[in-house]
């Protein structure tokens, strides 16, 4: 019996399922004493609500479109049982390929679902809100991953995405704040106080894009012109970003009074947003989230259907081949790294203009690194990376959601969930992903 990847993953899956089962059993057992209606752990039910998004706006107590009541313990037992069974099959059969990734994904996916059920035992949860949060929180990760894809597909490793996002967040906000002051003076005119002030916000986004591009240009300059190891150059970007943004914030931003009060607004897409479940998930977001979806689709198209994409893939795989047919490899790399940085800039704008309004030190909180993991998870494909981003953001969303239910899992475990998931995904599922062959290598004729 050889220890292989498939067996390892099977074992891990079984372990997770068993731990989960025990934890739920234990925790629900403790809850029994609290309420009188519930006699045994099998009596708990978890309700999943799909609210009526259209009516909810007028009446916060509008009845949901559907409320699915699931027996908590039975459902979780079934899920864990199935996971253990499949895990056992993996160990017994040791399939060579095609099993590991789907199995690990379902362990994580169903694991999350079980935790959610566990948390809302004897309570109910709004599904569309949870899922729309996954998309929302996935936005910066997905955009960051796209930035990574553009760079790595053209052969430049970019671990500086975190730094690019952070700087972009800082200067994007600065651009918005300063331009608002220049346009409107010390305070907004009365007629726009409540409305959305588009012009400075757009200037802010552009500023963020520009900043991301400039940081990327530094990365490109160091790693292409000076042939600095790309990992080191990315690290320089990350450290520099912390310094520059912290310095800018304390020395300038905080002393500057801007009339701007709110960031990018919610933009429900008319009747589409009222579709139950789907509406809140896809059609009721702020602009950068829509932009993210467009960018995922767009980059997929550009990468695989256009001349630029063909050339980009070629210089990332085999730069010499591209060079011999007259493509200027280094110029193209410069351009793509800067484009990547500009994309990362959009993610930066999300942090300071959409997710929240304002800039704080270190506000990207390591999402740039998670972006890279999402990129690797997605095997350097935009759609796949988007999927990876959703996986990571669902860990985040779950973490925020379950805490609201006085959940008795220590908060530290929930906090480390996204990182543990990243680790499992990197080690178990994508270990065999093949990066662009020339990624990380300096091109010399």
């Amino acid at each position, binding site marked *: 019996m050889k220890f292989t990847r498939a067996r390892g993953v099977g074992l891990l899956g079984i372990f997770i399922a068993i731990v989960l089962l025990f934890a739920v059993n234990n925790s629900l057992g403790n809850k029994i004493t609290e309420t009188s209606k519930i006699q045994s752990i099998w009596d708990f039910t978890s309700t999943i609500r799909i609210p009526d998004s259209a009516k909810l706006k007028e009446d916060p107590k509008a009845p949901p479109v559907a409320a699915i009541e699931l027996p908590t313990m039975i459902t979780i037992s079934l899920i864990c049982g199935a996971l253990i069974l499949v895990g056992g099959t993996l160990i017994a059969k040791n399939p060579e390929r095609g099993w590991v990734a789907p199995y690990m994904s379902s362990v994580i996916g169903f694991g999350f679902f079980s935790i959610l059920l566990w948390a809302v035992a004897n309570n109910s949860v709004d599904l569309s809100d949870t899922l729309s949060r996954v998309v929302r929180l996935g936005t910066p990760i997905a955009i960051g991953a796209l930035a990574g894809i553009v760079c790595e597909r053209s052969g430049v490793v970019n671990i500086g995405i975190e730094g690019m996002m952070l700087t972009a967040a800082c200067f994007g906000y600065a651009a918005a704040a300063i331009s608002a002051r220049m346009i409107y003076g010390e305070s907004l005119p009365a007629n726009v106080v409540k409305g959305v002030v588009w012009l400075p916000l757009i200037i802010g986004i552009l500023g963020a894009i520009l900043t991301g591009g400039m940081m990327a240009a530094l990365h490109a300059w160091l790693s292409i012109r000076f042939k600095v190891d790309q990992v080191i150059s990315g690290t320089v970007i990350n450290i520099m970003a912390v310094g520059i943004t912290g310095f800018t914030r304390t020395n300038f931003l905080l002393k500057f009074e801007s009339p701007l009060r709110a960031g990018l607004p919610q933009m429900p897409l008319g009747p589409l947003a009222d579709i139950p479940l789907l509406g809140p998930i896809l059609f009721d977001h702020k602009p950068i989230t829509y932009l993210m979806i467009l960018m995922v689709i767009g980059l997929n198209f550009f990468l695989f259907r256009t001349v*630029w994409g063909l050339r980009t893939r070629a210089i990332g795989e085999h730069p010499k*081949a*591209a060079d*011999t*047919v007259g493509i200027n490899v280094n110029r193209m790399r410069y351009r793509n790294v800067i484009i990547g940085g500009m994309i990362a800039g959009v993610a930066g704008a999300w942090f300071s203009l959409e997710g929240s309004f304002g800039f704080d030190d270190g506000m990207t909180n390591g999402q740039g690194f998670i972006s890279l993991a999402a990129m690797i998870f997605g095997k350097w494909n935009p759609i796949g990376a988007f999927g990876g981003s959703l996986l990571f953001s669902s860990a985040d969303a779950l973490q925020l959601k379950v805490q609201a239910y006085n959940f008795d899992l220590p908060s530290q475990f929930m906090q480390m969930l996204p990182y543990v998931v990243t680790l499992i995904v990197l080690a178990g599922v994508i270990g065999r992903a093949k990066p662009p062959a020339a990624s990380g290598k300096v091109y010399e004729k």
Partner: protein
Amino acid sequence: MTANVVPALEVRNITKQFPGVLANDHISFTLLPGEIHAFLGENGAGKSTLMNILYGLYDPDEGEILINGKLAKIKNPADAIGLGLGMVHQEYALVDTLTVTENIILGTELRKGPVLNAKEASQRVRELSEQYGLAVPPDAIVGDLPVGVQQRVEILKALYRNVNMLILDEPTAVLTPQEADDLFRVMRELADQGKALIFITHKLREVREVADRITVLRRGKVVGDADPKTASEGQLAALMVGRDVVLKVDKTAANPGDVVLKVRNLNLRDDRGLTVLDDVSIDVHAGEVLGIAGVQGNGQTELVEAITGLQALPSGSIELLGKDITNRPPRSITEQGVAYIPEDRKGTGLVLGYSIRDNLVLSTYYKPPFTKGLTFNDPAIDENAKELIATFDVRTPSATTTAGSLSGGNQQKIIVAREFTRKNRLLIASQPTRGIDVGSIEFIHNQIIKQRDAGLAVLLVSAELDEVLALADRVAVMYHGKIVGILPIAEATRERVGLLMAGIQEQPNGK
């Protein structure tokens, strides 16, 4: 070859200096439309440098290039292509993950705005491949294709750009003799259509077969022109090497002893599930050289790596002197008396950044006399270096010079020195003379025979059929991961082996 035709290409006094090497020394030649002009020379004679200059990959220090009688400035490959120059590189410039069509159109894409016009491009490729008789599947991923087909893609890539001059840099290195013949047919056809071809090789027979004119290069200089119809192989060889070369290796008949290496039923698949080794079984006896012939990439590398413990095997068994060594760690196999010259000298055999001294103990550094207690025993390591440098005639300023700064021949001698001086029972040599100078080749060939005569079993893998035929006592041929035949050297004619290399099995009773 009338005198009044304007040459397609004229090169005057091209000179290129690299640190420490004068790669091209005032080279001049002309290329006429419709001719196949062969450049013959040893490795390092400056052929590839010259071609890279023509193709805009290097800048010459001096000299000028005229195309169709006009002075041309070739700064980069795009200029070269624009001037009608195409090149088929020795290492194919193909992107493995792209399709045939994508590879061919890369750089001169058919487009609708920024969008690729994939359909039409694929159609054009199909037409082109029919026009020149170069069959390729336009929508297949290049990495999945056999090398012969990849080479056709390379040629089509040039033709797609409407070149009228085509440089082929060592195009036959990875082909079977039959595939090479096929290539020569295509080359001839292209020449007949008026294209001018430059054909670079170091194989004498090939130039005589296909070239219209031969220019011989040695140490960066043109040392002579020859007419293939009149020049003999011996003459050409003398020109190429600068002295009369011994083409034959002096050796006596083998005196085989007991089986040293016994390989049974090896099977292996690669990451994509394709068969790499298909039920391979061989025996190597003490005192004999078993040569493995075959076009590169037919499983030889994996076979050798399996024997040396570098490649894990799902099934099959390997025995060394009756002891099972299947899937043992490389070190324990080495310690049982296996010496191994790897095919990739720079990537595997040496640490280029290390000194010669350290490279000479790369596989024995951990045991006495090179260690004393927990630390290295420097005097012993220095002594070892001094001794081996002298014995194996490594040309170096000092033992602390880095391996990377030596010539290929001297690098290979370091590996040979390190591997041959252990107590060995089996010697595995994989492409031992690829890309090194004739002097070193001779030296290494003699060393191998010396080892055989000392009673070692030798397994020789080479893509150079000539080398296998010169050294081996028995010849095994690999095709698609299978041993398709094992012949005693007396029966191993070039033709028979060639057919086997192309996968054409002999019927036991004759067909």
